[in-house]
């Protein structure tokens, strides 16, 4: 039970930091809305309805990247990560706490972005929304680990998209498939598989990334 308590305490800490500083979430919201408006001008009128779904996924991935790039900044600035690593808790709890906090930010951004997408472009059915939720889990799980790696490097924010984008290609396949394919459940199953594989891998390997 202490593990769950540790994770929740860390998530709560991140949410409280965000609530006081408002560094990340407003930027994500504004970014995703501006991107959708840009897409209206980027898609030609005769491009077909499905093109919009593809662009929605580009917007989602880049919004997540924006959130992930900021994920470890407070820890970096105040040397909190060293303290957390020394704290008597399982290190993977740090990863899980950060993943949950990033997931909350991403879901909050999408709570605005998805209705806006329906308003501006195409309707979304339940399968498409389930695809978005499953892909969110995957991208936050992998992204919070890779973001910790990138935060320790010299290149920092520059490096993160390079690390995350190749790994997010299967998520985009799953998400777009769930939105456009008549056989969407197959893609949802694939997303569940991806989430399971990479969440376990990230959970198991986080300790190696943050310890000196």
């Amino acid at each position: 039970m202490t593990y769950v308590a540790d994770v929740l305490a860390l998530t709560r800490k991140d949410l409280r930091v965000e609530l006081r500083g408002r560094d990340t979430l407003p930027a994500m919201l504004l970014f995703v809305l501006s991107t959708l408006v840009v897409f209206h001008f980027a898609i030609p009128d005769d491009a077909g309805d499905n093109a919009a779904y593809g662009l929605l996924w580009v917007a989602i991935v880049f919004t997540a990247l924006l959130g992930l790039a900021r994920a470890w900044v407070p820890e970096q600035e105040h040397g909190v990560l060293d303290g957390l690593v020394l704290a008597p808790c399982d290190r993977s709890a740090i990863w899980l706490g950060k993943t949950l906090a990033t997931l909350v930010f991403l879901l909050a951004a999408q709570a605005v972005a998805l209705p806006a997408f329906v308003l501006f472009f195409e309707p979304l059915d339940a399968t498409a929304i389930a695809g978005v939720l499953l892909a969110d889990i995957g991208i936050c799980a992998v992204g919070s680990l890779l973001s910790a790696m990138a935060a320790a490097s010299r290149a920092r924010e520059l490096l993160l998209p390079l690390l995350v984008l190749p790994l997010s290609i299967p998520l985009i396949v799953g998400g777009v498939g769930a939105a456009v394919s008549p056989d969407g459940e197959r893609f949802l199953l694939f997303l569940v598989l991806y989430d399971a594989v990479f969440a376990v891998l990230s959970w198991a390997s986080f300790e190696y990334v943050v310890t000196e």
Partner: protein
Amino acid sequence: MGLALVLALIVAPEDADQGVSQRIFYIHVPIALTAYFCFGLGAVKALLLLWRGDERYDLESYVAIHQGTIFGALTLITGAIWAKASWGVWWTWSSNQLVLFLVLFLFYCAYFMLRFSLEEGPRRARSSAVYALFGVALIPVSFLAIRLAEDFIHPTVFTREGPQMSGSMFATFVVSWGAVTLLAYVLYRVELAGKRLDADLRELREALQ
């Protein structure tokens, strides 16, 4: 390698459907398989590093992935040539294997970016190792993703009933595969020796100062 080239270019019978362009198959496929093998080797060494904590595996993992990326780039080039010869275009998104290699190539290029922007030390070794492990998990997952996303135009040579080619073609293929694997192994040893020499030299220089 020379024997493989002779066999591939002269001895093996021409493919009835694709003609002379099919001969690049004897280079393209062994290179691709070798690249997979190198990525796999890099991941095994990465796992050993995380498990045993021996610094030696860091360099071995890095060199294996370096070789894998070189062979991956060669796969993309030979694949593009074959695509041009048999389908008339340099690049086609309907070829699952090529798309997979492009994804992997991007992924492993990011590996080098990560490695070279971290401070040298055990933390860099472990971060690189974790990323290398993500790579081998990405191979089957991306493959599945690309299969799901694309239609099936690429010729599938190996099926469950065994290889779909005649005896002499198969023999040529095996010799080519052996030759390319040997080449990769020699390159791996040479690069590893060079990198080790480099590290030793640096240690010596630091000791002298």
